[in-house]
Structure formats: C-alpha cells, structure tokens
C-alpha cells in the first residue's frame, strides 16, 4: 500500500534578492513615477581589474540586508529632524538585461531596450552596473525613451566619478568601454556637453579630454573642490549648470569617486577622493532633483573581502532614492 502524499502550500518567498527587497516584475508592468530596476551584470568592457559583473547581485543583497534593519514603522532622521514612513509600491525590480560577453553591440541594445521601455512608461530607470561603460546603454535607452515620451525635452547630466570617462577611444578596448561612456553619452541628441557636470575627479586626467569638456561648456569639480567648496555649494552649482534649459536630470553614480581607503572594492581606485560623508551629502542634495534616470556602477565585490564597499554602495542608493522610498509624516 502506498502512503498518501500530502503537499503543503506555504506562502513561499521568491528565492534570490531584489533591490530593496522589492517586487520582481517585467518592465512592461512598471507604473509611471515608479523606480524600475535594471541589472547590468557585465564587466567585459572594463580594462583592468574585473569583478563588477557581480555588482547588481551585491547591491540587491546589501539593500535587502539594510532594508531589513530599518524600522518598518515611522523612522526619524537625526540629521534633518524629519519623520518618515516607508513608501509602498515605489520600486519594481525588472531583473537583469541579457549580457552577451563577446558582443558589446548586443549587450548595449539589450540594456537600452529595458531602460527605454521604462522611460516611455513614465517610470525612472535605475540601472545597476557592471563597469561604468554600461552607463552608456542605460542612458541611451533613457534618451530614446525621453525622445518618445517628450520629443522636445532635454536632459542634464551629472556624473559623480573619480575619472572623466570622456576618452574617444581607449587602446585595445576601442570606442565602447569604461573610459568612453561619458563621451558616448555626450553624442546623444537630447543632451549637450554644456549641461554635463563631473564631480569628484581625482589625480591626473587626460589633458585633451579635460580641455574638450571645458571648451564645450562642461563643468568639472575635482575632489579637492568638493573639499574646499563644500558639498552643498557643489550641488547648487552642479544643478544650476546641468539643468539650465533642461527638463530632467540623468545621474550617473560611479562609486570610485570615493577615496580608496574607504572604498577598495572597485576596479579603478583613486586616492584623495571624496569621503563617504561627502558622497552621501552630494546624493542627499541630488535626491530632490527632477531625476529622469540614474545608474550606479563599478561595485566589484571580489575586490573587497571586507564587503564594506557593498554596504557603502547600498547606502548611496538609500540616500539618492530617499524621496521615493519614504513618505514624510505630517505632524
């Protein structure tokens, strides 16, 4: 005699991590005003120390971990004195774009298709790198989507980064790699270099690239200017520059602008970079800007056995997305 087989139907969670432990769904299901997350697990366009292809998974894990430690009820920010409640239905994780390791064209189009669909729908694409090249396909899709949603709209661009990424070509890696993403973005039809701003540039940069940016009206804030001017003033000047005549802002967050002493888990470390406190204050400042799209790049978990780089990067997302993920308590 065969024993009866019983099957339980417990309310199971979906395995794996989603950003901020949010729901997983397709790009077509994201509503206007929501954050639509797109993973870009590719470091095939990085020229030196790899590992950023594990970045999206690490960001999903770290934000979920931090989320679990935040109170589900009202919370209090001692810096601002504001009370907030967690927002609902503010984010959808759309999974990863299809990455084709040996075909940068296919990878580019796959990422762009997802961010374009989100932008057309009125959502805000948040792309998780990956090396910083992937910022270009993410912004490419946003640019295409914006052109469809609002044909005459223009966007300003701010890149927080230790490097300019404005080279036309880079040796063996040609024209599409992690040193050329800003240059490729500058060639998109609905952005102008005079509305492009770089913050946190450190060390030595290519003189030709810097001269070209400034000749075309771009603005570069070095890490030392962040130290000397202060983050509030840098945010004010950066937004004034980037948003002149523009409707929306695209923000590209390269974590490597932070000093390597704090943040070693990235491919191209810089020294005398900005501190975590300064980075967070910059993101606090940009959190109220009219964000149309954004990306965060260059988190390479294998390069930081301490895992603090993942936690710091997750906190960056908590900061920049604060007005989406929380609602203020009216007292």
């Amino acid at each position, binding site marked *: 005699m065969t024993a009866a087989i019983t099957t339980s139907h417990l309310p199971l969670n979906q395995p794996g991590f989603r950003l901020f432990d949010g729901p997983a769904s397709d790009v077509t299901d994201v509503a206007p005003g929501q954050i639509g997350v797109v993973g870009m697990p590719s470091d095939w366009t990085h020229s*030196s*120390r790899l590992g950023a292809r594990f970045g999206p998974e690490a960001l999903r894990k770290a934000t979920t971990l931090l989320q679990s430690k935040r109170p589900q009820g009202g919370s209090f920010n001692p810096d601002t004195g504001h009370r907030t409640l967690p927002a609902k239905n503010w984010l959808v994780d759309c999974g990863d774009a299809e990455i084709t390791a040996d075909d*940068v*064209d296919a990878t*580019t189009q796959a990422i762009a298709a997802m961010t374009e669909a989100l932008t057309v729908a009125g959502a805000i694409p948040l792309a998780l790198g990956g090396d910083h090249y992937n910022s270009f396909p993410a912004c490419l899709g946003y640019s295409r989507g914006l052109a469809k949603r609002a044909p005459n709209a223009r966007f300003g661009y701010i890149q927080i980064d230790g490097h300019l990424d404005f*080279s036309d*070509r*880079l*040796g*063996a*890696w*040609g*024209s*599409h790699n992690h040193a050329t993403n800003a240059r490729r973005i500058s060639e998109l039809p609905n952005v102008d270099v005079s509305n492009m701003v770089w913050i946190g*540039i*450190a*060390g*030595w*940069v*290519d*003189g*030709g*690239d*810097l001269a070209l940016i400034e000749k075309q009206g771009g603005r*570069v804030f*070095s*890490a*030392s200017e962040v130290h000397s001017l202060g983050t509030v003033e840098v945010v004010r000047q950066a937004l004034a520059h980037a948003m002149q005549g523009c409707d929306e802002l695209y923000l590209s967050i390269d974590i490597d602008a932070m*000093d*390597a*002493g704090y943040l*070693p*888990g990235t491919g191209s*470390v810089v*020294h*005398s970079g900005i501190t975590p406190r300064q980075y967070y204050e910059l993101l606090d400042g940009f959190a109220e800007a009219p964000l149309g799209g954004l990306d965060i790049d260059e988190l390479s978990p*294998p*390069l*930081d*056995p*301490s895992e603090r780089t993942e936690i710091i990067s997750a906190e960056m997302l908590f900061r920049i997305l604060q007005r989406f993920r929380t609602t203020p308590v009216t007292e």
Partner: protein
Amino acid sequence: MPLRSGPLPRMAGHLSFMRSQPKAIGDVRSGQLAVLGLPFEDTSAPFAGQSLAARALRETSVYFGWHANPQFSHPVDIDARQDISTDGLHERLCDLGDIALGSDEAIHAALMTATRQINRAGACALLLGGSDRLSVTVQKALQDCQTVQLGGTSCDARNFHIAPLENGSDTTCKIDTATDLVAFTQWRNSTKPLFVRFDLSVFETSLSALCDRPRLGGCDLDTVTQWLSTLGQHRVSAIMLTGLNPTRPGMGIVKVGQRLMVTALLAFVYARLGFGTTDFDTVSL
C-alpha cells in the same frame, strides 16, 4: 559594424617601471633616474610576501606611463589645473631590472656595487623593495650620507624622520608640514649625499592595510606627496621604497598600498627629473 577595435598589447611586453626603457647599468648617465628592483623577503617580518613588492609597484606604475602610451594626450593635475609635461621623461627614466637571487652576501654586495655605480654616473637610484633591512646596505654604499625617513621605525637620531612609527606606543603622530619643511632645510647639508627611505607605514593605516606594520596617525596622501615633491627637488642619491606587502591576507587584490606609493612617488619622479622645478642642492656627486 563592430564597436571594438583590434587588440593592442598595452598590458603585454617587458614589465618596466612606468614603461621606461630597460637599460644596462653601465649605460646610466648623469641626471637620470635608474630603477632597480629588490625582490627579497625579510625573514624576520611578521608576514611573507615583501619580495613581491617590486613587481607589484612596477605593475601599478604602468598606469602612469603616459609618456609611453599613445592613447592619451598629456596628463593634467586636476587639483592644480596644471599640465604635466612628460617630454623627455623617456630619455631620463630607465629600469635596470632586479638584483639577482643569491646568498645574503651576494645580494648585499650586488646592491652596494649597483648603488655606487649609479651614483658615480651622477644618477639617482630608485630602489623598489621589499625589506627595509637592505636600506642599511644602501646607506653604507652612499658614504657619509644624510638619510630622510618617511615612516618606518626610527633607528638613528641623525636621520630626518617624517611620521615615524611610535615603537610600542599608540601615540598619534603630530605633523606640521610647514614647520617640518623649515627644519628639513636647516638639517640638510648639501655637501653630503642624500638618501630617502620611503616606507608604506608613513601612510595612515586606514588608507592601506597592505603594510606589515600598521599604524594610526600617519600621513595622508597629500602630505606624503608634498614631501616627495620637495625631496625630489634636492639632488637625491637614492630613494628606497619599503614596507609594501602585496600578499597581506585577503587584501592583495585591492592593491591600495602600491597605488598609494606609486601615486606619491610620481611627485618625486617628476621633481627629480626637473620638470618645472629647480635643484635646491648645488653639490655635484
């Protein structure tokens, strides 16, 4: 149309410091900076791995080989907004390779001979260590030299010491660079050879965990860079890098230590080769 071009051998080929020209020691000439690797362990060090420092420093320096890299135009110091001329660097920076493995006696003898020969030619030796125990040999080779020590343990009161390790103490180091620079000028005797010991421990430990002897209260990068730029304007006979251990457990992949050292060292290289600076010393060695 494919977006990538064909591969270029940027990371391949002979590994020399900043992609400088390999040269035989007999061909070193006056005014040059001659790099020499010291890939040896200090058997009394708490961790093995210092012998890999010379290779790690060369690998990191390749990123700064602008003069030998056609894909860049020219470097600009973004903080100072100052163009950095690299013209002529390739003619004056050369890499002699490493001191060969051998017995202790043979290694010390080879290092002493090489240091003397480089200095007789009127050049400056840039020694990539490794263990700082070999610095005693360099001091002996540079007869009656004055020694400036960045970091490391203080062992000779005659040395000019910047941010020394507080042996067994947790006292935070107080650094007043402006005052120290004046004191250095008073201490310096330009009739004597000058030897610079640059130990990774000069940096605040939170900036790099790749040092065998971590310390609190060290210098930041700007301070070390300022010192090396100043020292580079003097006629230095030899500068020796020590204290880097690229294999410190779990941290070797991060490469923060060698990045810090090479970034600061660039200030010395450019100052020593006279790009936009003048020699303070008038002594001819």
